[in-house]
């Protein structure tokens, strides 16, 4: 079992390297080539620089393709890491922040690559892959003791419902991350009018489609969590901080969906709600660090 856990960690290491390299490729592709041209003035006293001009030109799509290939490598290694840990633990690894974040990386990469393939847009990798690399860095910073497999505490010993509840949360957070990437790129594309970025309408639709997966998933997180709470604690809602943080996130995306579909809030306003919604999702994700209450055992 120790060998499996160790090998799982090696796979995570390989995935981390692939994620960082992929993020660099995607960023290089999205930013383009930066050319700084300086105007020189030749005088009898010597050469004086009188001005400069910065130009962005599109980067070769081969860079983005390389980024995508590395993202697939990262996914393969991370999925193998989670699979090995699943075999070693005898359950899906979702019991602490190390396991939860490792599995989150798999879901995030899957969601991103599915969206990339569906929409044929690679520039979003410039935001999603750095997020994934940041999450990998966070996992590296967690105490090494968390890499060991501990038995589940009694409160979590309901493996099926825990896997559904936490798995849906991972799906929701991942799609919100993808929606955030679309919103951020939308704001960049409309503010700077970078020609090789995807059209604003496509980015707007991309964000919306991601939310149409994430919002029902978050709704199911709340529902399945409530059913579990009823089974374990005798009440389906206890106003626990983690519950209400998820409700807060849900309300923000409810505002986004209503303003978009009923008030026609597309573009900048919708994009800012998605940015704010993702901030709320991160707040819920890391809430265990500063929340007390019934979910405190799910902390670090």
């Amino acid at each position, binding site marked *: 079992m120790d060998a499996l856990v160790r090998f799982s960690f090696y796979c995570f290491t390989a995935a981390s390297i692939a994620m960082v390299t992929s993020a660099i490729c995607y960023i290089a592709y999205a930013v383009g080539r930066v050319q700084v041209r300086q105007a020189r003035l030749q005088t009898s006293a010597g050469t004086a620089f009188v001005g400069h001009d910065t130009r962005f030109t599109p980067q070769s799509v081969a860079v983005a393709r390389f980024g995508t290939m590395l993202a697939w490598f990262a996914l393969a290694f991370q999925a193998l890491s989670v699979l090995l840990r699943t075999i070693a633990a005898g359950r899906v690894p979702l019991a602490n922040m190390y396991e939860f974040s490792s599995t989150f990386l798999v879901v995030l990469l899957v969601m991103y690559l599915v969206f990339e393939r569906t929409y044929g847009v690679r520039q979003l990798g410039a935001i999603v892959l750095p997020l994934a690399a940041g999450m990998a860095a966070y996992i590296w910073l967690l105490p090494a003791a968390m890499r060991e497999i501990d038995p589940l505490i*009694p409160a979590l010993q309901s493996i099926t419902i825990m896997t559904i509840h936490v798995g849906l949360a991972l799906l929701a957070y991942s799609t919100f991350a993808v929606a955030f990437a679309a919103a951020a790129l939308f704001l960049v594309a409309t503010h700077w009018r970078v020609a090789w970025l995807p059209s604003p309408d496509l980015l707007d*639709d991309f964000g919306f489609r991601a939310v149409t997966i994430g919002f*029902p998933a978050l*709704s199911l997180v709340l529902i399945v969590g409530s059913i579990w709470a009823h089974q*374990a604690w*005798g009440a389906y809602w206890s106003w626990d901080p983690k519950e209400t943080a998820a409700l807060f996130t849900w309300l923000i995306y409810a505002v986004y969906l209503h303003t978009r579909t009923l008030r026609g809030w*597309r573009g900048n306003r919708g994009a800012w709600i998605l940015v704010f919604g993702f901030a709320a999702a991160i707040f819920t994700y890391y809430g265990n660090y500063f929340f007390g209450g019934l979910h405190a055992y799910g902390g670090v």
Partner: protein
Amino acid sequence: MAQATAGQRIASRNPLEIVIDRTWRFFCSVRVAMAEIALLAVLVLIGTLRGSSVPDSIAVLLPFTRPVVDAWYAWDVFHSLPFMGLLTVISVAIAICTINRVPGIWASIAHPTIATTHGFLRNAERSGEITSPLSPAALATQSRAAIAKSGYRALADERQREIHLYADRFRYARLGTFPFHLALILILVGGIVSARWGFREMEFMLAEGSQRAVGYGTDLSVRLNDFSETYTEQGIAADYHSDFTLLRDGEPLESAIISPNHPFTHGDMTFYQSGFGQAVVMQITDVAGNVRFEDALPLGQFRSADNPEAPAAVIDVPTAGVSMTVIAPDENPRSQPELDQLNLRSGQMYLLLRPLGPSSPIAEPLAITLNQGTPVPAGDLSITFLRETRFSALQIARNPGISIFYAASFLLVAGLAVTFYFPHRRIRGIVSPTPGGGSKLVLAPMARRDWSGQQAFDRLLNNLETSLGAPIARIDRVTEPPAGAAGRQHVATSP
């Protein structure tokens, strides 16, 4: 003139009618609904942070905010009047808004407007154009049949030598909003039903061998037969469960073993395993040797006021006319040893005995240190600390709103799935006669700035092209700008 007429009409209306109309419009306003949800989100955030260390961190960083932070911690947002009031307003708004939308949505499903304008087709971001030698009627018939093959409902209406077309898909998905919003109201109703007709006993502590009445108007009681736990190598509880018997009027009804996540249900009542701890068995006898009290007291319900690391228990014993406070030894004597004034050793308990009622056998409060198994006189009584044992913490709940919650959950998920994954797609078109005796069909989707809607329209055009066997000219007025270009007014056509 028109304003005067409208003014007269308003003036002629009953004031009550005006109030009802304005109230109705207030609750139907999307802008107001958004403000309500945003306010609810703010209150939820305030309540969420109240359960965290964030306000305290703010007060540490900015000491002048301390009074505000103290008030923040003191305010139970989720049980406050403003929060309940806002939930009520939102529920009413959802109900009224939903009722208000029914006629419009149903009309668009059952009786959609078929006629459109050339202006709509001209200004559409994307459109398709088919030129045919067929007559307008023949082209319209063929097009409708081809559109219907793609899963759309195709309707036609002839107007001034032109035939207007309307096609839509997944029209019934528009009804998905109703179960979703009904579900939100039902969840609140479920909560109200549970709060009004149910109960939830959070700390039902029971020591091994002891028995306790459930209360809440029932004639049931619970006896804990056995409690057992196992630990991991790190000393963390790996599993624990309680073996108990449910009794009615002292007669055993049913026995069960419960553990976390595995409750036991009897009728409409459920028993949950929530925790466990240390208990102390105390005995009180009178001068004649009669046992006035012998039971286990769960320690840890309270903490000593002077030393928070010393678990304590308090109980009134009317049969002995005393109130007992028992304090156990400090659980962590190395931490803040200055607080441990009692200096109790293992096998000792500190007892504070107070008189209870006018016929109490003791005249004034007594403080005694008890050694396990050694009786100590206290007035006319004798107190013995018999042994230490464990208690099991149960939760008992009756939750009649749960079936409403399950129904609401189903409606919520179904409503969301239908709304999001079967979007209502609509297409409009006009078949016009051309000078040579032929006809021309122009089609455009009702999908402004909707990338997915336009993709669906493109797929329909492809199917149409195949079915009709005629080329379709596609007009894209918002095509993606080529590298180096910017702006949205680029028009591209392709045969």
